[in-house]
């Protein structure tokens, strides 16, 4: 094919969040072309679900099981799987304007989570609103990208991923062992 792909030995996993199907397809393509592994979801709550974070991020596992036994198929085993998957995410890129949970809301939830607060979060928006941009950056977003997202924007993400990964390795040992102790009672 003759494509000049930026090859890394370790493949980074990006979680992309956007309610627009077209935008999801395009960002997925951009990311894949840059050799990232991509999971694309259409809402903030699905993103949290993918990470293994319940919406309230309850620390009390017992409370979770009592809450809703139908949708809450989170047994201690699955919980561990989600946690593993969640730890496999190196960057979250999310649209700002989404129904229900906005990208900003998602950012806040992730930064509040002990397990995931170190995952770099990037926010995208089609609207250039300076106060919105500074608020997101102040509250922990690594970058704020204006749509349409370009290939050069995706290139900007790489340093954040590398930084995120080394932090991830350090904290993962701690959080995994904590989870093992509290789950599966």
């Amino acid at each position, binding site marked *: 094919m003759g494509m000049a792909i930026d090859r890394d030995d370790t493949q980074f996993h990006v979680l992309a969040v956007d309610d*627009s*199907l*077209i935008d999801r397809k395009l960002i997925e393509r951009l990311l894949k*072309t840059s050799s990232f592994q991509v999971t694309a979801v259409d809402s903030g709550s699905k993103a949290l679900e993918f990470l293994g974070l319940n919406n309230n991020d309850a620390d009390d596992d017992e409370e979770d099981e009592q809450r809703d036994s139908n949708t809450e198929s989170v047994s201690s085993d699955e919980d561990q799987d989600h946690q593993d998957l969640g730890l496999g995410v190196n960057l979250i890129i999310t649209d700002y304007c989404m129904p229900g949970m906005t990208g900003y809301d998602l950012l806040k939830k992730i930064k509040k989570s002990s397990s995931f607060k170190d995952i770099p979060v990037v926010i995208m928006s089609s609207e250039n609103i300076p106060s919105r941009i500074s608020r997101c950056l102040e509250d922990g977003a690594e970058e704020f990208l204006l749509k349409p997202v370009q290939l050069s924007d995706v*290139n900007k993400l790489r340093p954040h991923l590398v930084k995120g990964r080394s932090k991830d390795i350090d904290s993962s040992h701690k959080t995994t062992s904590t989870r093992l102790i509290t789950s599966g009672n």
Partner: protein
Amino acid sequence: MDLAALKTQLKNFVQSMFEEDSTNPNFVEEVITLFCNDAERIINEINRNLGYQNVDFSNLDSYVHQLKGSSSSIGANRLKLACANLRQASDERNKEGCLQAVQLITCEYCLLRRKFQALLHRGVLLSLRPTKNE
């Protein structure tokens, strides 16, 4: 990353979109089709909304936002600008202005669709392969 390297990367990327990809051989066609179906649906909804005595402008806003967003993402600049027009009229709660703006959107969309059809037609697709300026 310096400009020359970026240009090469971009060229390769655009080229890859037209080439056979085992995981998704019809990417360009798929995205274009998705966009067109979406756009038509939204334009119809907007027209329907404007047909009511009392127009729900916030609902309208939401539709325009969607269409503007996907137009921008797919690179349809003229359509995007036409959406901005409608956004303006909607912000002003100007029903007449909205009706005019939708006319423009419909025009631009029709033009765009014709361009897409030409693009997807095999012969033209090959001749449009990116070897020129990006």
